[in-house]
């Protein structure tokens, strides 16, 4: 048998850190760091062993530390959205959290050293933080545009300034950066930066706008889909995304196994539901 490409383990909560209204949760998860590539995700069972909520939860892998004092750890950027995430950000250190990772197909990286624009909304930044570094290693010029409702939901700008040539920030309430929405500023940004590849992570309307604006400019797009993913491992069909295959045939494919990263021009956006 070949080495596994994905692991299932009882990860152990090591630490929590608040970041505005978001949370960074560090988990001891041996082996995951080594297998992770930007765009893959971790699927967690939240709420403890007696929770009556069966759906699992997907999270981007924000950072990995292949080895440290506590062994191999990963960090997640968590928005408190529902009972499961509320539980996660309140767990006592040492709590076991069943975790399956890394799952899905990562972002495709350009073969050449080209210009790339990374667009991320709120916790979507967790999908692109590591990507920025990888692209820079390959000699790419990296621009980043981050958006959020407000300052409190913005994360990673400082970190990204170390790798990216430019980092722009847009907030809906204008509490930091420019006031506005990512989708609004996108056309002007792309006209100015002229990337060959646009990477995006965030809600569906942002992904759709990214795909359209990239295509209009002859650029590639790679969009990271974060809709419902109740099982994360391909069994439930709860994550079907309508795409057009390389054979030009329309199909509905599982985002957890065929995605979560898709080529923007392959998605039939009119039929995407959430």
């Amino acid at each position: 048998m070949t080495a596994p490409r994905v692991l299932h383990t009882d990860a152990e909560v090591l630490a929590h850190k608040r970041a505005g209204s978001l949370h960074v949760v560090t988990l001891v998860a041996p082996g995951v760091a080594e297998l992770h590539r930007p765009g893959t995700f971790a699927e967690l069972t939240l709420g403890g062993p007696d929770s009556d909520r069966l759906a699992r939860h997907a999270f981007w892998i924000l950072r990995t530390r292949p080895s440290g004092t506590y062994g191999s750890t990963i960090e997640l950027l968590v928005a408190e959205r529902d009972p499961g995430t509320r539980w996660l950000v309140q767990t006592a250190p040492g709590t076991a959290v069943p975790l399956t990772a890394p799952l899905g197909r990562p972002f495709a990286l350009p073969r050449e050293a080209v210009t790339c624009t990374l667009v991320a909304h709120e916790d979507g930044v967790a999908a692109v933080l590591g990507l920025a570094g990888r692209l820079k290693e390959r000699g790419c010029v990296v621009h980043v545009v981050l958006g959020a409702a407000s300052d409190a939901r913005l994360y990673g700008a400082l970190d990204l300034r170390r790798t990216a040539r430019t980092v722009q920030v847009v907030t809906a309430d204008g509490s930091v950066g420019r006031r506005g929405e990512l989708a609004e500023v996108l056309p002007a940004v792309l006209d100015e930066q002229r990337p060959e590849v646009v990477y995006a992570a965030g809600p569906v309307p942002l992904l759709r706008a990214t795909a359209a604006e990239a295509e209009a400019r002859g650029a590639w797009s790679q969009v990271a889909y974060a809709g419902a993913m109740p099982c994360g491992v391909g069994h439930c069909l709860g994550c079907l995304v309508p795409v057009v295959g390389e054979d030009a045939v329309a199909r509905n494919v599982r985002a957890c196994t065929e995605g979560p990263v898709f080529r923007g021009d392959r998605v039939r956006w009119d039929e995407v539901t959430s």
Partner: protein
Amino acid sequence: MSAAEATRAPAVGDLGAVRLRGPVVAASGCLRVTRTLEDLADLSALGAWVSPTVALASASSPPGPRWWGTPAGLVHPTSIEGPGISGLLAGDVPWFVARKVPVIVSVAAATLGDYAEIVRHAAAAPGVIGVELRLAPPGARGLGFHPVTEGFHVGRVVAAVRGELPPGCALLAKLPALPDKVVDLARAAVDAGADAVTLVDAAPAYAVDPATGRPPFPAFDPDRLSLSGPALLPVALRSVHQVRAALPQARIVASGGVRTGADVAAHLAAGASAVQVGTTLLRDPVAPQRLRTELSAALAAMTPHPIEPSDEETP
């Protein structure tokens, strides 16, 4: 059921035409082929894999949400989709067969003729050890499937396909969750020649999205929703217990609510000779091996020990 009766009941793994290598079986529609399946699940821990239900024709699966969490359960639309019987026999079936997982093909059809045809195809495929008839998927009226709510319906379908199965291929009849009818339906299935009955299918259900007051599945018919998961355990156990009490010789495959090895043991104690696990496979990708381990412990802790688990291989 007393301990004495338990010993009279069919042995663990006994499905008539075949004997399973272990009692834990992947339920229909809950374990699918992926690139990473083998990295997670130890497929050798499964007595068999039941395919998602297929029809003669293929049907595409609409995108969008298709399950909604309810307390210890999930509500999902009942629909027969996927590649159709030929697609299944060309794709996922050989995938499992190549990995030495005994395959049971789940089928549904609109007419007795279609039932016979699809069972003939399925049973003839290499590595297929059984066919499971999905009888009366909950809320199936109008889907074009053969309506099955009374014993004589079950008898007719079973009789129509019985002759299509070669020796060594078991015929399972999966029955709907109708508490007052399950004994009649099971008796009709057994009398017409089914090797075993699978008890029970997901239960007829409904769900309301608190934001809209309507079911949360815009792409699906709101009258064809059903409930799966641990919430169902006591309901499924009841059907198993009732059929075991009424038909001491019938072979029963339990389905419904299994989360732990203790739940598998409970179904065995209630009278099943094999136990399917469905929803838990969605939530715990390592469930096959976990259940195998937990089951041994659960059986060891039960006094009197209800059954002797079989470790024999399928021939």
